[in-house]
């Protein structure tokens, strides 16, 4: 399936884009998507276990994904 992954701030800079389209197997979980991301140029600057949000909520690494999900990799936050 095709997944859209949103990137922000330092991660968007590292990977050179705010939006990646990735092809992954059906029933991929968040942790597998993160491993798949590592093949992308610039992904070497991601930490070992980056935060991921699915449909605008933080998600666990065993959370299963579907093609309609809004997936985002979240850099260390600095709001307030």
């Amino acid at each position: 399936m095709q997944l859209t992954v949103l990137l922000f701030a330092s991660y968007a800079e590292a990977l050179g884009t705010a939006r990646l389209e990735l092809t992954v197997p059906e029933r991929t979980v968040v942790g597998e998507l993160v491993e798949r991301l590592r093949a992308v140029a610039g992904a070497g600057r991601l930490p070992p276990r980056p935060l991921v949000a699915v449909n605008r909520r933080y998600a666990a690494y065993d959370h299963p994904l579907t093609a309609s999900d809004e997936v985002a990799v979240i850099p260390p936050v600095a709001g307030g």
Partner: protein
Amino acid sequence: MTRAAITADPIDAAGVMARVASDSHGATVLFVGTVRDHNGGQGVSGLDYTAYEAMALDELDRILAEAQDRFAGTAVAAVHRVGTLAPGEISIAVAASHAHRASAFDAARYVIEEVKRRLPVWKREHYLDGTREWVAPGIGAADDDLVPR
């Protein structure tokens, strides 16, 4: 009445307070975060706040709902700014009101602590020497505490 907002416009702190005003609430606490002119010994001339806006709005709304759950009878509101800010400008305003002061203080404090911990907002500081850098005091690695149960 929207109690959570992410905005590119200057924040009106009095307006955020007004959202929690009630004649039955005798105590209101307002927290205002402003851009400091220094950080870690370096002079700061300004900063850019950027957000995953759709999620930030949802997450801020969830934080406010949690505060109202934890501190029953509290009214809360919060607005976070995005865009380029100069020192002294307001980056966030949080207001909480309650019949009594302890819950108003506790609710306002809860909201700002959770915002710092969880809100998908990032900032890049502009230093007086012309350099810019993403600043990341928050949690970087996947953290099971952040995942809703």
